[in-house]
């Protein structure tokens, strides 16, 4: 269960002492110690901006440290690049899958270390070995197909298989489970335990505390670039862990929000969709959204949640059904139409569809508001700064100032800036796709509180989330999707994790619950 394998030498596998790193005056890491033993799974935890990513990137040679020592099995190392880190047997799987969608699965597994014969790549051997490598992971796929053809979960497992196969002694998993479903997580944990029994040290970064307690031997917590402490998992109660991470006592479990008066139901819907759908995307659905309510979309990966919100926001064009806003029929030909109607959308993949990395925090926040005003009427600089500063304060976006390029911020803070972008336009309907993905516990709670406050102000929210507890905490109505179909709608007192799970799992039959 715990690290029982005897270490081959007295020196720990990896010993980091007094590690420091600063960026443009921000001290990202300040004298951090971290010890990884042979054959242990060690959770590296902390809020956004705690320094986890920086620590990992320093280990893997992406960044060079400013101070401190890193020793691998007693030998001082300072990798200058990913390649060198790989040669030192430090393998990494990043938060976003960092493989190449255009190459085949086999080529991804063997990039840079292809089996050679007579000076040429032995493609036959590469295919055979690729299949053999993936076998223990329960993946029996066409290894010659481009990687992009497979789901994110499959790609993630392939990334792990690659790192493991490169005979890593130290395996760093940076939020590998963020896109996996429960079954895939189980497969991953099995693999992690096997690797542990072979003496490999695994650094596991995650936001799921359940997973920490399920699989980790030890926990190291960072906060604001400093070490808070290292504990054995078995000796650290969960509440203490959260307190360590947040540096404050967290309020007790999330409370159910007041469901609001029944008159809410009698209010005319803000937006109403009738038999709205798009072939090959999501089947026609009916959906009413009233002012001041949170409607959540729940379902498994690929069930059509994201597709639904893309239709609602006009990012994809519906090919059937109709949409009405304020009782008037409207056409949603593109996001511009949606924005004009007072819709806002925070996408799930903030890197690809949300933030503009090179622009400053201020420019990112102002973007949607400016777009709605039209580019011919620029918002005065003074006003822009006011708005940006207000939201930075309001949402507690951690940045030294509003002029910093947003890509330098941590994931959670980017997410908050995105939220600010749409809040600045004072939308009537705000769509949030996985608002809390890849965000730490503290920011989680803040975003949930924010959602509740927004509703109280009369804004309508359409939220896609995989976190069922969260959905239950803030939703007045939950639409459950399965296989690209809206299969059930729960409201008020019916909303509970059990009911949602039951709806997702229920037998597929036509003409199902739609109240």
């Amino acid at each position: 269960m715990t690290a029982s394998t005897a270490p081959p030498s007295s020196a720990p596998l990896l010993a980091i002492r007094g590690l420091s790193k600063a960026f443009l005056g921000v001290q990202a890491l300040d004298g951090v110690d971290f010890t990884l033993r042979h054959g242990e799974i060690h959770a590296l935890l902390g809020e956004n901006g705690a320094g986890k990513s920086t620590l990992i990137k320093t280990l893997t040679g992406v960044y060079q440290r400013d101070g401190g020592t890193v020793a691998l099995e007693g030998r001082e190392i300072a990798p200058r690049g990913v390649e060198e880190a790989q040669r030192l047997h430090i393998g990494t799987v990043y938060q976003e899958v960092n493989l190449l969608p255009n190459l085949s699965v086999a080529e991804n597994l063997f990039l840079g270390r292809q089996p050679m014969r007579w000076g040429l790549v032995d493609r036959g051997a590469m295919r055979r070995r690729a299949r053999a490598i993936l076998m223990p992971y329960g993946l029996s796929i066409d290894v010659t197909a481009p990687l992009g053809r497979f789901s994110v979960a499959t790609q993630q497992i392939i990334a792990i298989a690659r790192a493991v196969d490169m005979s890593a002694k130290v395996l760093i998993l940076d939020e590998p489970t963020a896109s996996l479903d429960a079954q895939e997580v189980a497969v991953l944990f099995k693999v992690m335990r096997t690797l542990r029994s072979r003496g490999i040290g695994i650094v596991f970064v995650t936001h799921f505390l359940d997973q920490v307690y399920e699989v980790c031997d030890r926990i190291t917590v960072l906060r604001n670039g400093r070490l808070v402490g290292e504990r054995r998992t078995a000796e650290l109660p969960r509440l203490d862990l959260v307190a360590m991470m947040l540096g404050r006592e967290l309020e007790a479990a999330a409370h159910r929000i007041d469901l609001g008066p029944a008159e809410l139901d009698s209010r005319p819907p803000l937006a109403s969709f009738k038999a709205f759908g798009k072939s090959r995307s999501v089947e026609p659905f009916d959906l009413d959204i009233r002012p001041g309510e949170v409607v959540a979309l729940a379902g498994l990966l690929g069930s059509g949640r994201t597709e639904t919100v893309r239709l609602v926001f006009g990012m994809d064009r519906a090919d059937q059904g109709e949409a009405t806003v304020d009782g008037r029929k409207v056409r949603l030909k593109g996001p511009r139409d949606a924005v004009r109607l007072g819709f806002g959308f925070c996408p799930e993949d903030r890197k690809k569809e949300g933030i503009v990395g090179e622009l400053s925090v201020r420019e990112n926040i102002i973007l949607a508001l400016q777009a709605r005003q039209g580019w011919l009427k620029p918002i005065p600089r003074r006003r822009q700064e006011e708005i940006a500063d207000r939201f930075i304060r309001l949402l507690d976006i951690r940045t030294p100032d509003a002029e910093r390029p947003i890509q330098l911020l941590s994931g959670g803070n980017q997410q908050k800036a995105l939220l600010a972008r749409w809040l600045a336009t004072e939308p009537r309907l705000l769509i949030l796709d996985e608002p809390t993905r890849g965000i730490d516990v503290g920011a989680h709670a803040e975003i949930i509180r924010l959602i509740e406050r927004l509703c109280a102000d009369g804004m309508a929210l359409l939220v896609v989330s995989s976190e069922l507890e969260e959905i239950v905490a803030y939703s007045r109505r939950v639409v459950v999707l399965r296989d690209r179909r809206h299969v059930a709608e729960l409201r008020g007192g019916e909303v509970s994790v059990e009911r949602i799970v039951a709806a997702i799992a229920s037998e597929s039959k036509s003409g199902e619950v739609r109240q």
Partner: protein
Amino acid sequence: MTSALQRFLPLIVTTAVLVVGFLLCAAQFPNFASWRVVGNLLTDNAFLGITAVGMTFVILSGGIDLSVGAVIGFTTVLLAVLIEHGGWHPLAAFAVALIAAGGFGAAMGGVIHVFQMPPFIVTLAGMFIARGLGFVLTTDSVPINHPLYGELNDIALRFGAGGKLSLPAMLMLGVVVAAVVLAHWTRFGANLYALGGNRQSAELMGVPVGRTTVAVYALSGLLAGLAGIVFSLYTGAGYSLAATGVELDTITAVVIGGTQLTGGYGYVVGTFVGVLIQGLIQTYITFDGTLSSWWTKIAIGVLLFVFILLQKGLLTVWAGRGGEPAEA
């Protein structure tokens, strides 16, 4: 099986266009379907084919090389000046030209990588520089009369009735075969595709990004230099205005051949077929005799447009179908 079919579909379509086009030409002109026409098609387009192979690699890696036409022009001038004015042996001049062209490409690659500059701008600058350097050497068209040129032009494999595979054609076929091997059976080739797929991911996976970038532009320059040699053999002269606009013809061949301009997807063989399609259109217009040669450009323009639409269409269809749900 179907996934393999999907991957090769652009290539299959391109090849089908070539075959159908050839059959149509053959139906209209009785003399068309002859080894002689095929041999000429290869010879006339040899320099274009060689250049286009280099361009394919650059585009696969996510870049572009606008300097190739100018490098060809410069090479022909350099050869003419060295051989005719300098009295060099052509082989020595060839070696110098290849080194100069390859080095020029490597320098552009270095600038692109070190300063993180857009390849479009860097190679645009390279285009002006190369073209200008040619004019500095001489503004005249200099005929090359060295006996070796005659001998090299006489080398040919004869086959069929009147068909012959000239030295330029052999060089092009050799380059294409070597390029296919390079693309699919070497680490360099895999690195190119990786770079074109996603530069950052490639770097994180340990692809030597800098070395690969420099190498791919060096290779493109080298092949443009080789194309320059072939061009000077073909025309028997060096002229600084030679091969104007060839960079655009090669890009066209690459795109018609099914390679995506954004990089990461495509095949060298497709480019070869793309070059032949362009050559076929030109040959048709020569055979017809009444059409203005500008019809070549119009036909190629229409074809290019159709192919881009086709690619877009295919991508949309795949995205809509997708083997597995792609929601993240």
